[in-house]
């Protein structure tokens, strides 16, 4: 438990089955034993029963590959983040863009509207980085231009020679 907690604090974005996932460790978490998926289906009859349990057609149903640490018979659904779903369709729950009884992805809570998105990106990372550095570089250049332009006035000097009755100050030119 402590190891998992440490991992979650140091690696907030995990790669889970090749899918980026935020690790939300809620110390006051709640789990219900009835939510546990059944074992990995081995026979065809088990597959059809599992598909029926999750409300899917048997030809659509595909469980995660069984490596001993998988999700049992929970289906492997296409990962579509919520902002990619049609906002104009007549969902049963329009704010969640969900229908009643719809099987949801294992990482659903990371891809809700306010969180991660897997939309196709319009700008390449290099383009975004160069634009960022360009704008920040412009700010930096202006700052340097207006802040560090007295590099030739850095000699130590006496206090200011203010006017005073009876005091005389001299230049360095000879009397002529």
């Amino acid at each position: 438990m402590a190891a998992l907690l440490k991992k979650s604090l140091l690696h907030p974005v995990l790669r889970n089955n090749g899918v980026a996932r935020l690790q939300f460790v809620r110390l006051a978490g709640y789990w219900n034993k009835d939510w546990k998926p059944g074992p990995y289906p081995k026979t065809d009859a088990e597959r059809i029963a599992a598909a029926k349990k999750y409300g899917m057609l048997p030809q659509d149903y595909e469980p995660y590959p069984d490596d001993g640490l998988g999700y049992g018979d929970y289906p492997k659904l296409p990962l579509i983040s919520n902002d990619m779903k049609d906002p104009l369709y007549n969902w049963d729950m329009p704010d969640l863009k969900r229908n009643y009884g719809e099987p949801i992805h294992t990482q659903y809570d990371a891809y809700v509207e306010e969180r991660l998105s897997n939309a196709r990106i319009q700008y390449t990372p290099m383009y975004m980085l160069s634009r960022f550095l360009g704008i920040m570089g412009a700010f930096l250049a202006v700052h340097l231009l207006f802040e560090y332009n007295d590099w030739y006035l850095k000699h130590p000097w006496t206090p200011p020679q203010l006017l005073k009755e009876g005091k005389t100050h001299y230049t360095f030119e000879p009397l002529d």
Partner: protein
Amino acid sequence: MGSVSAKSLEDGSDYKHDPLEGFPNGRKPREIKTTLEEMESARIPLDKRDYCVDYLMKYLGCRSEKYPWVYRCHHEKHEYLHCQYEDYLIRMKEFERNRRLEERAAKNNHHELL
């Protein structure tokens, strides 16, 4: 009460060593043409009442005439800033002169002690 001491009000000459030492042809004293009454009338801040007040007065006069197009006073402003730059040079040279005289005095002391 304790912030302004009498010592700061009547401090001695600004020159710790003889200012004319080492100048066989003497030194020209710094002069201004502005009188104290004129400075007080223009309410010039105390820290700006140095040897560039002539140019400052001219610049301020130009500004008050040409306001709000004060960019037209760039010549007067340049003259004032040039005077400030010359003042910087003089003070820098004074500092260096003082430093070298101090160094020489310390060396002489050292030799005398030996």
